[in-house]
């Protein structure tokens, strides 16, 4: 099987930086009007919410575990530079080669260098959202190297020339009939079947051959342990174990925020991760990798590499409030509980990470020029913050990002692209509004004028009237009616 084509008509496999603010509006509109998509996301999210709830029957246990998990993540971040150095030292001692990358370009160049040194023709991949973030598959393809996804959901999405629509369940937008047709079309010698077990067995057969033959295995990292120099991976399928065990070279890539100090710190984080994500008490596999094959050992990769990626994370780190973004353990619970995500699905956002977490993390990765509209794609209902296992105040961060995007550009901003959503007219309107509402005299005058001049209210009021009736002042003010009643 050859690598899939780079882009498709739907455009879901396009590089992430492609989505402009205008395109984002159109994509959301399209998604909201797609009844199939609405039905499948509604069903899937209801399912995941119920499964998560069933894992936390004891409120006080959940509260205590969240407090502990939040404390561990905040503690780790407070020592981040030290822990990264400790991690590097221990991994190096264990025989793992550690690389640092400032951005996607550097990360891909490092991995391409490793692949070239081994004259690699094929790379088999375990699930890694960071590899999606850096468009790893595109970079390898451009260099003539096959990068094949092996997680069943990722495999399906890659075969269809799309991108994941959920960080945990990448193919959640597809029905089994669509997958059946895809396999029949794209996998040689396969007939149409929509039996899920049969479909999984087809994937198993195709990918087993790849595991056996691939030169390099790539994986992400869920937790990196500084004190032992250990990379931890959470998965159900066994493809993560295959990718990190069978090929001669294992490359792991992770964001710099994933490090924790002590091995025991992963116990609560792992527990709350699987329960929040898919409502599983535990995943089938928890894989702790501390080095390449030792001289006496009979299998395992001969070389292990870790790529530590910044890509905007150090920007988030520099601000005390925005730093909380980095507490994330990528469970996906915030998207499962998000009324907006449920209605527009994962692709509409156009970013690698969709949903609430995507809205708070993408602006750091891509800059606010590209993403200034994202923080507004929210009702601020608060569901995301309520379920987040590490208590990231997502709604608060969304408000902050809206401010960063829409305030007048100034020197020394906290974020790249600050002010990208600034509009002089809007800013004037809000300042005037504030002035009117801050003074009783101004307010009385304004409301008196508004009720007298109501006939002049414009019938088209920008974004408001796109989906609602126009705002028109009442003929009589409330204060007048109250006065008459007395």
């Amino acid at each position: 099987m050859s690598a899939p084509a780079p882009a498709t008509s739907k455009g879901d496999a396009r590089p992430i930086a492609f989505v402009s603010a205008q395109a984002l509006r159109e994509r959301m509109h399209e998604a909201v009007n797609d009844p199939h998509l609405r039905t499948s996301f509604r069903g899937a999210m209801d399912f995941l919410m119920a499964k998560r709830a069933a894992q936390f029957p004891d409120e006080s246990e959940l509260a205590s575990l969240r407090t502990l998990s939040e404390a561990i993540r905040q503690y780790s971040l407070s020592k981040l530079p030290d822990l990264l150095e400790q991690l590097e030292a221990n991994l190096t001692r264990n025989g793992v080669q550690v690389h640092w990358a400032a951005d996607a370009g550097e990360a891909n160049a490092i991995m391409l260098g490793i692949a070239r040194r081994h004259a690699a023709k094929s790379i088999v991949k375990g699930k890694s959202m960071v590899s999606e973030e850096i468009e790893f598959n595109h970079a390898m393809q451009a260099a003539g190297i096959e990068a094949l996804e092996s997680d069943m959901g990722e495999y399906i999405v890659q075969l269809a020339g799309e991108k994941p629509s959920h960080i945990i369940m990448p193919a959640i937008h597809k029905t089994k009939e669509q997958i059946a047709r895809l396999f029949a079309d794209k996998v040689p010698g396969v007939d149409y079947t929509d039996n899920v077990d049969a479909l999984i067995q087809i994937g198993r057969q195709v990918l087993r051959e790849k595991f056996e033959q691939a030169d390099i295995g790539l994986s992400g990292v869920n937790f990196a342990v500084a004190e032992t120099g250990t990379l931890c991976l959470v998965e159900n399928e066994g493809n993560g174990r295959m990718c990190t065990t069978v090929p001669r070279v294992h490359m792991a890539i992770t964001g710099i925020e994933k490090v924790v100090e002590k091995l025991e710190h992963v116990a609560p984080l792992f527990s709350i991760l699987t329960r929040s994500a898919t409502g599983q008490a535990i995943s089938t596999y928890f894989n702790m990798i501390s080095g390449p094959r030792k001289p006496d050992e009979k299998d395992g990769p001969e070389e292990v590499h870790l790529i530590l990626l910044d890509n905007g994370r150090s920007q988030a780190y520099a601000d005390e409030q925005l730093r909380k973004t980095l507490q994330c353990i990528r469970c996906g619970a915030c998207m499962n509980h998000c009324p907006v995500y449920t209605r527009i699905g994962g692709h509409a956002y156009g970013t690698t990470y969709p949903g609430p977490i995507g809205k708070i993390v993408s602006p750091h990765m891509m800059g606010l020029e590209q993403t200034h509209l994202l923080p507004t794609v929210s009702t601020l209902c608060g569901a995301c913050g309520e379920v987040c296992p590490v208590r990231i105040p997502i709604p608060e961060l969304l408000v902050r990002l809206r401010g960063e995007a829409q305030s007048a550009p100034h020197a020394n901003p906290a974020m790249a692209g600050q002010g990208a959503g600034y509009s002089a007219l809007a800013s004037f309107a809000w300042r005037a509004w504030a002035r009117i509402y801050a003074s009783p005299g101004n307010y009385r005058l304004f409301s008196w004028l508004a009720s007298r001049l109501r006939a002049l209210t414009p019938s088209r009021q920008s974004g408001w009237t796109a989906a609602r009736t126009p705002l028109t002042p009442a003929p009589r003010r409330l204060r007048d009616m109250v006065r008459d009643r007395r």
Partner: protein
Amino acid sequence: MKQPPRSPRSLPQGGAPNGFGPGAREAGTTRDRILARLRASRPSQPLPAPVLDEHYAPRARNETLAGRVARFRAGIESFHAEVHLASEAGWPALLARLCAEKGVGSLLYGAGTPAGGRLDQSAFPATALRPWAGCVEDLKAELFHRIDAGFTQALGAIAETGTLIVWPSEAEPRTLSLVPPIHFALLDARSIHPTFFDAIRAGNWADGLPTNALLVSGPSKTADIQQTLAYGAHGPKELVVIVIEAEGEVR
């Protein structure tokens, strides 16, 4: 509000603001730059270290060995694994019977372990016993295409979730519990810990982990197609656990 057409505004020349992003000019390697940036903005004092016992200690269970075995069993069975109880003397015979029932033609196991030593002396009626010999490169094709089952010992288990602790070694390589369609694991009931946290603490894991350490909770599975659970994704399709009980304690 209407968004006016936008042009990049007021970004300092030469790249992104604040020295972030690809345009930033700083000395040193990427590593040094990232670390310097983090150092410049990290809190002056690290936060106090989290106290894990505050969560775990009040939730500790006063449980008998039988209680732990029962919880482990219920957990791992709910993940679709099979559990059998055996005595120290009787487990090879049980394994032979299970292999015959499942039509296992060839069973690969680790040589030079105590359990492997027992199998070296056994003869299974319907199954060829194969001790692992050489490196994975020498037997990759066989491992992927002809071996029906792998047998390993478990280092321990976790009662709370129904989880096996597997530490591969020179004698029991990693692929033994991964590639063959059936994985048989031998577990001593006395090595079942209440929680993962307890296992890490009791075994002093932080002082030395093997190249690869694993937690295994059932056969490989996926729900990636329409949230429908299917077993046998990429790893073993079946996980069979033989629990050796200290005589009389479990029943």
